[in-house]
């Protein structure tokens, strides 16, 4: 317990200190609330609009998770196919890399057009396209960057390609995949909110922020940003927890006194 306190203590202190400093600076220098509301004002706005914030936060999270699932599954399928068949790799990889340099968010209005502006799928697809590349390229790296001696070992057992895949390449790729999915969790929320800025259903974080800002209720907009951050952090932590359970052998999960 005291070890935990020592570990998290400094971060908590800094966080609280920043909030206090923020509060003081805003009131002492008389900063206009539309430029930067006081933390206490944001907290009040948060309490006042709590139910609505929870609803919009949940709706956006659904888009982010849906998009991450669609993009993630597609990326895994793509990476497995390219790692397994050299022909697939030669045919698909250059296209994927070229596609990655397209600023994906520019597709948001097109997605609205394709899937219907009110359909959450239009936002999910923006997220899916956004997370596709990082997950795909990391998975591919994990599947192909395998210790050569491990492959020779499998060769000495006259192991089939399938066995090499199942017993060496896939386990080797798992840490890479989790790293990519953790990064993509944050990315998926950014993608969902930005996609929402391009119009669509009203009961989502992006639209909430736009509307409140348009009416100069900046404390509410800030409260929504706090919700967005909290959702993002929670999403990240959930994936971290899954990672701990799925690959307990990985270096990131090793306890310091184990060796």
């Amino acid at each position, binding site marked *: 317990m005291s070890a935990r306190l020592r570990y998290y203590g400094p971060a908590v202190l800094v966080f609280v200190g920043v909030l206090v400093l923020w509060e003081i600076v805003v009131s002492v220098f008389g900063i206009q609330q539309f430029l930067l509301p006081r933390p206490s004002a944001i907290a009040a706005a948060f309490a006042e609009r709590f139910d609505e914030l929870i609803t919009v936060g949940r709706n956006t999270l659904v888009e982010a998770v849906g998009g991450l699932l669609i993009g993630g599954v597609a990326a895994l399928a793509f990476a497995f196919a390219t790692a397994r068949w050299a022909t697939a790799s030669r045919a698909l990889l250059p296209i994927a890399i070229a596609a990655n340099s397209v600023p994906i968010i520019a597709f948001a209005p097109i997605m609205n057009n394709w899937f219907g502006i009110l359909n959450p799928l239009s936002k999910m697809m923006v997220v899916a396209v956004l997370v596709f590349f990082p997950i795909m390229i990391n998975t591919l790296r994990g599947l192909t960057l395998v*210790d050569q*001696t*491990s492959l*020779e*070992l499998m*060769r*000495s*057992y*006259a*192991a089939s390609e399938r*066995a090499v895949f199942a*017993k*060496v390449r896939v*386990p080797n790729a*798992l840490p890479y995949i989790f790293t990519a999915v953790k990064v993509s969790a944050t990315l998926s929320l950014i993608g969902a909110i930005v996609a929402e800025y391009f119009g669509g259903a009203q009961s989502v974080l992006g639209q909430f922020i736009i509307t409140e800002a348009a009416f100069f209720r900046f404390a509410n907009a800030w409260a929504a940003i706090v919700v967005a951050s909290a959702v993002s952090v929670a999403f990240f932590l959930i994936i971290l927890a899954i990672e701990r359970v799925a*690959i307990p*052998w*990985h*270096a990131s999960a*090793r306890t310091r006194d*184990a*060796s």
Partner: protein
Amino acid sequence: MTGAVVRMRAVQKVFGGGADQTHALDVIDLEIPKGAFVSLIGPSGCGKSTLLRLIGDLTQATGGTIEVNGKSAHRARLDRDYGIVFQSPVLFDWRTVERNVELPLEMSAIDRRARAERARAMLALVELSGSEKRYPWQLSGGMQQRVAIARALSFEPALLLMDEPFGALDEMTRERLNLELLGIWRKTGTTIVFVTHSIPEAVFLSTRVVVMSARPGRIIDVVEVDLPQPRNDLTREDERYFAFVTRVRERLRGGDSAQVAAKTRAAAM
């Protein structure tokens, strides 16, 4: 010792082509009898590891024939006739010690319970009972290499190929593992081909030391080490042991001049 497990006739290995050709091995004739413990020793780059990899069908010869158990090396690999231990243990981080040892058994149709039983027996053989459920990174380097040996022996291969398996370990661990390896060899009767650059290690372990020259690798001499079995710590203090060490050392040194002589001859022709 009946029959040869490995038969090599006029084996050559050339890497690359055209002007970049490297003659790694030059006309190797070698027979390894069943149950023998044969060490390959020579200066670095002499092709001793390549020779081992040729026997194991991890690389292909440019010329000559290689037979393992009366079959081609390729056929022998497909029949899982040999286990291999590399210089690094090559254990999978995501498997426990026990599951690492089971790995080769998973390639054949052996049920789970038999696999676990076999793994436990092998771990007992390398004196690692009790470590079944640990992960490789929780073990010392010497213990990891013992797991690798247990894994290589788990499917009872006819031939155990070891490529400088103790090269990365400290001297004391190395001597202890040498003793253990001899114990395993006696218990299992497996034929062992062992690559090393340590003369004392080669002499202590082997029934036969194959001395090789620098590139292109050739066999300069085959030394029959008829020190009494079972060998133990006292063997290392035996006068005849020192005599063998000296003999191998002189052979290795003489290898260079012999090679120069051969080159001069070739140039004269």
